[in-house]
């Protein structure tokens, strides 16, 4: 994962609430076996509407998306995060996110910034004409007009984003602890293993 410390530039001033992952990337785009190329399917139903924000030349290639409450609700498809990343979005600002989506976004180097509704409203206004900047060093979102909104991020997620860490690699380094846990369960609760699957003869 590429390290990220700052995301600056134009922002889609959307503000829409309850955007589900079926809207971010419809299911028929999910028949891929790679992570790349999903940007062309991103927000397909929104883009079918004339005058939509994603095809507005003012915001072409914007690295920031400003959305409303509960962004990314619904399906767990990480394709939603891949689609955003593929269209060049590196930060999403909203009053709240679905739990699964914010985890998926983080794993793909996309910063999810939670700000109060009034701050989001202000940023939507600014973004119509000017750029915004998300800074992980100072943990603030700023505009050219002296706006400065502080946000919080899980310290571990922040470190992974800023250092571009490979989480699987980090956990694999904890192998002794995982093996120790497994040995404990095998001793104390051996029934947890259950039985393995056996295909029936008719298969």
């Amino acid at each position, binding site marked *: 994962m590429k390290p990220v410390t700052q995301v600056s530039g134009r922002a889609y001033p959307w503000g829409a*609430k*309850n955007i589900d992952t*079926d*809207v971010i990337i*419809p*299911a*028929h785009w*999910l*028949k*891929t*076996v*790679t*992570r790349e190329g999903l940007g062309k399917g991103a927000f397909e*139903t929104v883009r079918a509407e004339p005058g939509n924000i994603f095809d507005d030349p003012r915001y072409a290639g914007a690295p920031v998306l400003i959305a*409303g*409450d*509960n962004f990314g*609700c*619904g*399906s*767990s*498809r*990480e394709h939603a995060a891949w689609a955003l990343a593929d269209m060049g979005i590196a930060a999403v600002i909203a009053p*709240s996110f*679905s*739990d*699964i989506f914010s*985890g*998926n976004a983080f*794993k*793909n180097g996309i910063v999810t910034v939670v700000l109060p509704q009034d701050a989001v409203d202000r940023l939507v206004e600014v973004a119509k004409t000017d750029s915004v900047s998300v800074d992980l060093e100072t943990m603030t979102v700023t505009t050219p007009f002296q706006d400065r909104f502080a946000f919080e991020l*899980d*310290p*571990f997620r922040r470190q992974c984003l800023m250092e571009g860490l490979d*989480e*699987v*690699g980090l*956990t*694999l380094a*904890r192998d002794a*602890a*995982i093996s*120790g*846990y*497994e040995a404990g*369960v095998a001793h104390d*609760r*051996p*029934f*947890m*293993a*259950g*039985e*393995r*699957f*056996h*295909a*029936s003869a*008719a*298969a």
Partner: protein
Amino acid sequence: MSNPQTLYEKIWNAHVVEKRDDGTCLIYIDRHLVHEVTSPQAFAGLRANGRKVRRPDLTLAVPDHNLPTTPRVDAAGHRLPIADPESAQQLDALERNTREFGVDYIDAVAPEQGIVHVVGPEQGFTLPGTTLVCGDSHTSAHGALGALAFGIGTSEVEHVLATQTLLLSPSKTFEVRIEGELGVGVTPKDVILHVIGRIGTAGGTGHVIEYTGSTIRDMSIEGRLTIANMSIEGGARAGLIAPDETTFAYLKGRPMAPKGAAWDAAVAYWRTLPTDPGARYDRTILIDATQIAPSLTWGTSPEDVVPITGVVPDPESFADPSKRVAAQKSLDYMGLAPGTPIAEVPVQHVFIGSCTNSRIEDLRAAAAIAGGRHVAEGVRALVVPGSGLVKRQAEAEGLDRIFRDAGFEWREPGCSMCLAMNPDKVPPGERCASTSNRNFVGRQGPGARTHLVSPAMAAAAAINGRLSDVREFDLGVQA
């Protein structure tokens, strides 16, 4: 005696491998279900880094999402090809990946094949007190058996395959207590739609829901699976129900459940799991089950719920201006006018299936309405059993004959019309009464209009050709 704990806290504490200074924990994952859509990139990630699957014995793969629900073998028993090349490629990838990494794989033509969330409990792979994950948000369903179960993204699938753990922060707890007896014609689906209508689609964000109360205790495992399945529609990543005698009776003898002395030890452990008296939840709501009517959705969010006796709401009636706008957009998409009695709305499609409502009790409830009647003219009605074993059981009970005689299509198991990833789709502008879990814009196909209903209500809609109150039918022997 130690502090009273909730069911969630007990399962969480039993799975902490390591606790970090910032409070996040490395949590051990006991069970991992894998399907074709959210796993190819995870296996590719393992391959690219020369990594193995740590515990293939705790991992089970089965295709479901984009598998067509038409026959899979011809009359001579030969496998039929998958027409869509992209679907075929994804299905091939799952088969190849599971072989390469030594993961147990249920083949598309195996009798055990089905929707992951039907297969897990049915095989006894899902057990109380376990942590269970799958790259699918409806993994919350398995919480019906007292497993801490939640959906994960593909990067997390890769993380679990490689390490059998996830780094997680503890969730808050949310008790949804449902008390009282359900009215005639009111099913678990109506209960969970009612709950989501109450709490909203973000009501459970950051929380794990525990469903408690007499209504839940009196419910079968099939009914509990329907309830826990839709926890994610209320924003909660997981929904739990305490294991009890109903749970143990359901699991005993299942192929992958513990056997003999291990079974007895397991039951003894599972009895220690229910929430202790005096344990505190971060939030509690109380629902009076006697006040729940057969319910359904009118809009494009699972929280847009009305009783079948209700009318399409007027967007002007919402206090929140953003809700007013959202409701108007929903009504435009759904092609509905405010004030229309919901039971007068005609449908062209009916879908009985999905991980929410495709189990044997669901099919029995639908068959009880369909029996001796016929699907209305102009309506296409699909019944898609949740697994090959559900299908066999239904056929042994003669339910397939009832459905076929009534003009329903009887299909092969899979996710089908729930998510428009396989050939089963609702055409643009057409309306479907669906037993699935999401009525999002385009969920059942571009421009498709979805009303979420119970299996009995879906069958009633098929017979009447319009959304219908199941209580209009003779419910003397309703399942």
